[in-house]
């Protein structure tokens, strides 16, 4: 339900970053979403398509990179990266763990169009989609 508020914040940040660099349009937005954030990537993309209208990112594509979570085990001292939810140390089985990552929701990068950008004539055009992060 709060995905729309999140994409508005995302667009606000993206526009601010783009304007600082004199960009006329944003063509791609990449964000990093931790599994613990309890945000559905599909809903985020759908909300983005609604909220982008009338912004610099009106034609932009959203790339959501979902990242897993990190556990620090207080029992064995190990650190584990889990691709999805889990609250048990895979090393020793202890549940006495501290969550040290997985709740990120960050703007990572943008693809923008800058007017009169000095381009090297031999430069290859950027691929339409790039992996982010």
């Amino acid at each position, binding site marked *: 339900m709060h995905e729309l508020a999140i994409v508005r914040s995302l667009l606000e940040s993206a526009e601010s970053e783009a304007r600082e*660099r004199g960009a006329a349009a944003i063509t791609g937005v990449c964000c990093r979403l931790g599994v613990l954030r309890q945000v559905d990537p599909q809903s985020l993309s759908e909300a983005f398509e609604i909220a982008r209208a009338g912004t610099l990112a009106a034609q932009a594509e959203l790339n959501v990179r979902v990242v897993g979570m990190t556990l620090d085990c207080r029992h064995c001292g190990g650190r584990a990266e889990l691709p999805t*939810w889990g609250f048990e140390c895979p090393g020793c089985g202890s549940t006495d763990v501290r969550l040290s990552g997985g709740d990120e929701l960050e703007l990572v*990068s943008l693809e923008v169009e800058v007017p009169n950008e000095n381009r090297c004539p031999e430069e290859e055009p950027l691929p339409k989609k790039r992996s982010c992060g």
Partner: protein
Amino acid sequence: MRIDVLKRSLFQKNDHAAEFNRALLDEHAVVAVNIMGGAGCGKTALLESIIPQLGSHVCVGVLEGDLATTKDADRIAALDVPVVQLLTEGGCHLTATLVEQGLKCLPLTDLDLVLIENVGNPVCPANFDLGEHFRMAVLSVTEGDDKPAKYPYLFKVANCVVITKMDLLDATDFDLEGAAATIQTLVPDAPIYTTSIKDRASGRTIVDWLLSRLKGSLSLASASSR
């Protein structure tokens, strides 16, 4: 042209407001507890039960989070304590910005404790720092013993867990030991209390927990000001 942004958090605005709230509360030596749980789990009834038991020496204020109506604030106001109804108008959780507005309406200089009742929802509230010092997760026996496993993050971030509506235990197939075991695997250090509005004394352990948080934080606040 590609711009790398270097991890600009989309929760920056909320987290800044949360830090502001925490500083404001600390400045007034006020402890805040964020009370979270599903709709109808008994959060307001719990407040109605424990507030009168806090004692006249503890001054409490309440922030009530809901999508609509002042029904909960009206119930708390009947206890003769300062209360502000925060309406999210469709939002599924309280935000630190909304709480900041609420705190500014409370007489913080006169208070020791602020109880923040979040929007009834076992999911999203757990992800939003409001600037509170402690988090309480509430679960009722009528919701089912599977909820700690189904909504683990709510319990994982809690400092204390309360199981309500114990008077209905016999009318349900709620497995109290099983639910408690799941909660303990998620938060080994958090105390688990059981309560029922039919048994007023059952709220005493929660009151004691709140009072002990109050003392701890007040001594911390006075230590940091030295």
